[in-house]
């Protein structure tokens, strides 16, 4: 492995791990379920995509292995993680979970 490919892989790895850590801190610190879901579904998705891209580059550079499973995994996470976040958030709203008491706007309140 050349030095520059190692640097690129390390950059992707550290970015992905940092974004996963940021997602976990958001899930701990934010006040209600909707903001926590916002943190978890966006940041963790980008983090796992960065790490899978680093894995793909690692095996491509080191072994010459073009792993289409990893590309498929990146595409799958990019499609399904926001959908899962949307479904949980909608289920939470419809089952009556309260928003944060300092929230100012609820567009769905008079739709029912």
């Amino acid at each position, binding site marked *: 492995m050349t030095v520059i490919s*190692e640097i690129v892989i390390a950059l992707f790895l550290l970015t992905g*791990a940092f974004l996963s850590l940021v*997602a976990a801190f958001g*899930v701990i610190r934010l006040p209600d379920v909707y903001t926590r879901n916002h943190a978890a579904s966006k940041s963790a998705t980008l983090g*796992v995509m960065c790490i899978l891209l680093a*894995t793909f580059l690692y095996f491509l550079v080191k072994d010459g292995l073009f792993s289409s499973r*990893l590309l498929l995994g990146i595409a799958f996470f990019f499609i399904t993680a926001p959908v899962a976040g949307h*479904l*949980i958030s909608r289920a939470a709203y419809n089952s009556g*979970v309260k928003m944060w008491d300092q929230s100012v706007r609820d567009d769905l309140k008079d739709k029912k």
Partner: protein
Amino acid sequence: MIETILQISLLLLAIAMIGLIYRLIKGPTVPDRVVALDAMGVNLVSMTAVLSMLLDTSNYLDIILLIGILAFIGTVAFAKFLEKGEVIEYDRDQ
């Protein structure tokens, strides 16, 4: 060099996992816990990828796709259960 980076990122992912476990235990409502479980599935995929690089084998790459699909199906089933009270409903009842 790359081995140190891999160990550091595995450590960061483990700290993130501990934070999500805290929310899973403490979370005041059920959707909080489902959000934490979904993020834990995503984190587990990252940990599997880093571990397959650390062990220098490409045999774990199937597991990544498998965990992703299982986490998505579980999250969708939980969301539907929370919203409608049952996971698989019959058309005849409506």
